[in-house]
């Protein structure tokens, strides 16, 4: 679109939005050209910052009329390019809709606007002894609207669930500007349960403008024990053994040697840098329960071959144990010019086999990989260390990432546990889902958005895209999905 075209369009939006809510200057637009996956960049025509639901509806009506692509955006922390702008469309930023509208202690819920930060919810209700459970690593910055779009996870998912399990109601502006609500406060409603469809739909089914979250009572006590291992296999088996005891830890995380070293260098959490793997296991509940379980977990770890177990003596040490894990990504960022985070999920029993596969792929591509693992729910985050300034290294890294994800699928897992597909994993979607399955996704999308203006080009690959991906990924002369028509 020409500059005059852009100005004309901006003027249409300024008819109902305050002038400063319509960004059309190149220099200001640049701040929106990427999200947390900075390898992909695109400049939108305009960025719009509505302040209320009525303005979101007006924006959608105009975009619908003009058939303009709309990319909704929260805090822009997506790691899969979910909020990457569309060159021929607008970015709808929900950053100004950041008020907590209602806190209801008796019903243990909060009604918030989508731009409210994840952590801000827990901070606002802490005095009442409540909190919002899902805690993605980006929780200081990420917004609840983005969490809903991505079905965000965190380190406490095994016990407390994903975003889906902690959302009670949504108010959504549809592609045509109308409003619909999904209200599951009653726990069971007549008709289809559309909550799982909307949560995790990556901005393709509607614009979430109000979120009712479930609040939980803060556990009375939380304690952490660390197990130190000289092999990944023993650490993995110990996770299975803990669960075999009937214990569901509040969090259970594993790090391999490169991740331990990077984290220790960065935060000095006292991690054993010679260890092949550490397990950090948190238990919460009442004093008595936690005491009984932590003793049991220590025994299980020792029985499983831990060379050492360490019990955090107090809250300060508990937070110290966690600090290394929580800082794992930036820690890896310090030892390498760039890193690329993969988000596969595997059945836990395949951990050793998958990590061995990752190691040999890492050698094949000559790129080091550090692994952090949400061990309880099988969500593996290999971090590929690379240098984007080296010619062709980003492409090589992406290919290695793709091979790792296909390895996860091969072991019965999935290409994304919590970061979403976005633009990043479109190709791998062609491997995980068959053509009729992808067609069903497209059909569902069209039920909500027949003109396909909401976040086009994300999450669900087109047939052409898959044909292209498969053409590029023929291994050993074997075409994946030989039954598909080729172009």
């Amino acid at each position, binding site marked *: 679109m020409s500059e005059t075209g852009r100005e004309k369009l901006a003027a249409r939006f300024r008819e109902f939005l305050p002038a400063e809510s319509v960004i059309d200057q190149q220099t200001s637009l640049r701040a929106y050209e990427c999200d947390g996956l900075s390898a992909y960049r695109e400049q939108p025509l305009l960025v719009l910052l509505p302040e209320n639901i009525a303005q979101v509806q007006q924006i959608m009506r105009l975009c619908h009329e003009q058939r303009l692509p709309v990319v909704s955006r929260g805090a822009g922390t997506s790691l899969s390019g979910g909020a990457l702008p569309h060159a021929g469309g607008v970015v709808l930023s929900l950053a100004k809709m950041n008020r907590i509208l209602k806190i209801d202690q008796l019903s243990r819920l909060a009604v918030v606007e989508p731009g409210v930060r994840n952590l801000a919810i827990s901070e606002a209700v802490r005095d009442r002894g409540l909190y919002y459970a899902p805690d993605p690593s980006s929780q200081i910055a990420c917004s609840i609207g983005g969490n809903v779009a991505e079905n965000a996870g965190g380190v406490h998912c095994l016990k407390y669930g994903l975003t889906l399990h902690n959302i009670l109601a949504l108010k959504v502006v549809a592609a045509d500007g109308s409003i619909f609500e999904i209200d599951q406060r009653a726990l069971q409603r007549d008709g289809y349960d559309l909550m799982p469809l909307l949560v995790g739909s990556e901005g393709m089914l509607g614009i979430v403008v109000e979120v009712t979250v479930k609040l939980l009572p803060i556990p009375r006590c939380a304690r952490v024990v660390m197990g130190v291992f000289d092999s990944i296999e023993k650490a993995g088996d110990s996770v299975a053994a803990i669960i075999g005891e009937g214990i569901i830890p509040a969090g259970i995380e594993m790090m391999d040697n490169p991740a331990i070293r990077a984290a220790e260098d960065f935060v000095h959490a006292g991690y054993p840098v010679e260890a092949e793997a550490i397990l950090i296991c948190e238990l919460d509940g009442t004093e008595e329960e936690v005491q009984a379980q932590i003793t049991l977990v220590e025994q299980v770890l020792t029985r499983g071959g831990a060379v050492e177990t360490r019990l955090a003596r107090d809250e300060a040490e508990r937070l110290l144990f966690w600090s290394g894990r929580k800082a794992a990504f930036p820690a890896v960022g310090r030892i390498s010019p760039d890193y690329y985070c993969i988000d596969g999920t595997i059945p836990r029993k395949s951990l050793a086999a998958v990590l061995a596969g990752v190691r040999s792929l890492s050698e094949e591509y000559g790129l080091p990989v550090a692994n952090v693992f949400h061990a309880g729910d099988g969500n593996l985050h290999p971090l590929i260390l690379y240098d984007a300034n080296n010619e062709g290294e980003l492409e090589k890294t992406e290919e290695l990432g793709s091979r790792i994800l296909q390895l996860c699928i091969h072991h019965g897992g999935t290409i994304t546990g919590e970061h979403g597909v976005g633009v990043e994993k479109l190709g791998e979607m062609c491997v995980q889902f068959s053509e009729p*399955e992808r067609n069903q996704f497209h059909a569902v999308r069209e039920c909500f958005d027949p003109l396909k203006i909401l976040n086009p080009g994300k999450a669900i690959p087109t047939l052409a895209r898959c044909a292209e991906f498969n053409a590029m990924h023929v291994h050993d002369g074997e075409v994946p999905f030989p039954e598909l028509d080729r172009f």
Partner: protein
Amino acid sequence: MAEIVDLSIEDELKAQVRAVAAGGGQIEIIGGGSKRFYGETIEALPIDVSAHSGVVDYDPAELVITLRAGCGLADVQSLLAGQRQMFGFEPPLFGAESTIGGMVAAGIAGPRRAFAGGIRDFVLGVKMLDGRGQVLNFGGRVIKNVAGFDLARVMVGSQGTLGVILEVSIRVVPIPEAETTLDFEHKSAGEHIRWINGLGSHPWPISASQWAAGQSRLRLSGSEQGLREASSQLGGEQIDYAWDDLREQRLEFFDPDQPLTRITLPPAHADLPIDLPQLIEWGGALRWFSGAGNIADMRAGLEGAGASVCAYRGHDAGVGVFHPLPEPMLRLHRSLKSSFDPAGIFNPGKIYPGL
């Protein structure tokens, strides 16, 4: 624990669906038939899918079980119990023939619902046959998975209107070490509702609640120590109580000769002005009324409250079993249905006209 899966039954079902679709017919999907009462009556060719059974995969340490839809619910429950595991949503059987597919399709959870989650919270993946006779897989066998729209969970409670469920992967949970029941006197329903919601702000190990005829009951689940501590602080009288009788609706309250109405609503909602015997579950979110009442009036009275008034069982035909949806939402439901089942062959009209 894995079994060799006999694919011939799946192929047979596929052929059946394709034949019916080609011939312009319609199908009523039948598992064990235990929840056939739930929803509108259907005029269609009944197809028994219960032969499609078998455990596809169960590794207790993964906390996931994958089952063919015809598996008997009771059999699966004893298999899980053998590993000290269970379904967290405590599903009712309503008959020995109850199947896993029917459990998922009906989407009815038991007393634990408010405290542990519903069926959709635990379903991880579904393999299904759509209205074109195609086999589709959604979700997976892992706990965390955000690839593609989460259509597996949408199948929960869809009453067979979207397709035939062939297989389902479900997350399981450990059986708690101990359980105990506490009994309290709360004369009015309103008193119970305020009390039980107030308890929610503290991390008590509550796994079920019930109020009827002036008595509140709480089930606590957890470690021996945890329960001792919680019981002494909560007070009340420790009693023996068979929660299975509540789950299976064998209590005297659930008189099979009387119509039964199920109202679900936000749990802290005030007591409803309905002059019928009442039983309350799910921390206040589920309220049963026994006896003939005016469903239309109840629905009108709860307009905008986030409630569903379901004419659950024994009501006059024509009243509409399920709470009507607003027109735009009904249109969305119909378009979703037709995206899976364009010719409308599966369980026609089971939930709403055209659905």
